[in-house]
């Protein structure tokens, strides 16, 4: 079908999703962008956010990625994500606890480098919480 685009979501450990999609929304470094078939070739890094698949066999699938990059060509979308989690497998309560832990980490962090790291971790978690 001409109005579908193959979409691969790959983590270092395995191929998470490989499906035909009508549109894929990606959390690019410069903001969310949607990819339809025939999109101009782009390589973009991703910031923490949600990948959303619309249309096709995996329609409605939502994956949270904390980092990675996407390669888009007119015929194919490939996302390499360091860790990707299907949003519907995340439990809000556990997440809230993790956020609380992360906030504590910031308070306890020694030195600037550790603090920056902890803040980044918290930001990632908050993005995920917002996605639920």
């Amino acid at each position, binding site marked *: 079908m001409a109005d579908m685009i193959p979409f691969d979501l*790959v983590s*270092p*450990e395995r*191929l998470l999703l490989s499906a035909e999609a009508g549109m894929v929304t990606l959390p690019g470094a410069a903001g969310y962008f949607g990819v339809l078939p025939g999109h101009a*070739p782009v390589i*973009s890094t991703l910031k923490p956010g949600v990948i959303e698949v619309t249309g096709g066999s995996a329609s409605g699938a939502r994956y949270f990625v904390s980092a990675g*990059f996407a390669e888009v060509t007119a015929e194919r979308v490939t996302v390499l994500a360091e860790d990707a989690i299907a949003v519907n497998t995340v439990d809000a309560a556990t997440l809230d606890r993790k956020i609380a832990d992360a906030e504590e980490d910031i308070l306890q962090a020694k030195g600037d480098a550790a603090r920056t790291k902890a803040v980044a971790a918290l930001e990632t978690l908050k993005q995920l919480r917002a996605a639920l």
Partner: protein
Amino acid sequence: MPSLVTFRKRIASVKATRKITKANQMVAASKLRRAQEAAEAARPYAEKMGTVITGLASAAKANSGGPKLLAGTGKDDTHLVIVATADRGLCGGFNSNIVRLARQTIESLLREGKAVKILCVGRKGRDQLRRQYGAMILDTVDFMGIKRIGFADAAKIGARVLEMFEAGEFDVCTLVYSRFKSVISQVPTTQRLIPAPVEAAAEDNKGTVYDYEPDEAEILAELLPRNVSVQIFRALLENVAGEFGAKMSAMDSATRNAGEVIDRLTLEYNRTRQAMITKELIEIISGAEAL
């Protein structure tokens, strides 16, 4: 002449050994399958990463030399050698082959007057290198107790290596591991991690002109550190697959060897028993004749 009891005991003990090696072989076979699957599942990621970086790097190199991870520090004085082996033995020459290659690499670096630092991944490598190069070994990472090596484990090592690189503790990083060719053949290999090797980009790769977002240099700066972890992860997975492959064939030949020993002992046992019976008969007969 050894008594029959000692024969029986030895046969029983070799049989017990054969059972153990047989069980070990079957465990290795099933683990091998899983390790192979993991290695195959990791391949697309590493390959994609490789092509994107190659594309970006050749462009960056043409311009300004690119970031340090790509261009190097401009020096070649201190080398970090990461030696990845298994944590357990009983896998034939697997560990020794990796260590031998590591030793050759280290020796040739030392001859050229470079300083060498060693990071051991896996206990067996440390055990074998400790005596000779004890002072150069910075640390050992092992995966005892971890059932499946995940990307997070590799990322930890990667982060450590990058930290040291940032601190200027070494200039060139080489990884020694065993490439998994097939179940019966693992090839010890060295791979340069830092600065990242860039093969000449294939011409047909240039078919698509990408937009980069943010710009190329920034993407490259983000991808290169990640690539270090990915390469380590891939090497570790290949190592695990190779370890079980080697273990399987080592245990297979041990099982076969035990079978041969049992056959030989049984033959000898029967012969001795027969000899004893014959001797007793002769004694009885000649005793009867003497009367």
